């Protein structure tokens, strides 16, 4: 995927690209992993970042890019981002921590939706994307606990 080819070039795009590249680089480190190596487990343990966390890390950029947000709300977004990162960095994702993080983000987005001065179309867009992130995060709790490839079905293109 050519992440450099984006339809728009904005600060948010650049931030998201940097995040995606950073995560991609960490994922690349896995390419040479070897279960026979004595430190294989600790190497893997050090890389907790999966897709769910990657998507969660995109939320601050998406929400923060909504035009007209006050500096006070931007500070709240920064605070929530920091708290979410702290929770997720604390170890493997568990259901309570995921729900805490999601509740914090939903609170921010709902507060923004009640601000009539902000563009509702942009807020709706972020809310829909937040649903996708929420779906991945909630799924991650089960996916990290048991492997069952029969649950993965082929999805038709649109």
């Amino acid at each position, binding site marked *: *995927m050519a*992440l450099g080819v984006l*339809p*728009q070039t904005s600060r*948010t*795009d650049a931030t*998201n690209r940097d*995040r*995606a590249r950073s*995560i*991609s680089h960490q*994922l690349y480190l*896995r*390419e040479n*992993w070897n*279960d026979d190596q004595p430190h*294989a*487990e*600790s190497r*893997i*343990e050090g890389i907790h970042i*999966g*897709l769910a966390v*990657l*998507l969660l890390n*995109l939320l601050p*950029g*998406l929400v923060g*890019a909504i035009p007209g947000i006050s500096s006070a709300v931007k500070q709240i977004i920064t605070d929530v981002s920091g708290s979410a990162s702290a929770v997720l960095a604390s170890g493997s994702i568990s259901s309570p921590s995921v729900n805490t993080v999601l509740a914090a983000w939903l609170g921010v987005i709902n507060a923004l939706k009640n601000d009539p001065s902000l563009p509702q*179309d942009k807020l*709706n*867009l972020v*809310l*829909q*994307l937040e*649903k*996708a*992130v*929420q*779906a*991945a995060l*909630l*799924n*991650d709790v*089960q*996916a*990290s*606990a*048991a*492997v*069952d*490839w029969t*649950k*993965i*079905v*082929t*999805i*038709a*293109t*649109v």
Partner: protein
Amino acid sequence: MKLTTLLLSLAILCGCHKAVIAPVPGSINNLDSWAFRIVSDSSAAIHSVKTWEQCTELNFPATVTVDGNAEVCDAKSGKFPMEYKPQLNLAITSLNTASAAGKAYHSGLSNDAAGLTQAVNQLSQAVSALVSQIGAH
């Protein structure tokens, strides 16, 4: 002397201690569980975006059927930006490719670890690009 030996033994034990990750039930190794987790999470995220796209395309009926599942449409949610259908389709095809590679590796039909890793990385990038590009719309 005994106390010193005991403390030294404890120190060595503590120093050698390393968190051991228990194998994920159902997995054949770490690559298998890592791949499954990303493919499964991606599937959930893509299903959510596809539901949004289908609701938009059908002008927000009460429900839509997405890959065999009935999903509720929220008319207040706003429209999916249709110019990002190619990105959605890339994420879907990447998902199907990674899923096929993961199933083959898990079942033993393939031992191509590098190929599976590449397919999963491609999927991860496609999904994150889908979300970030729509978000920057």
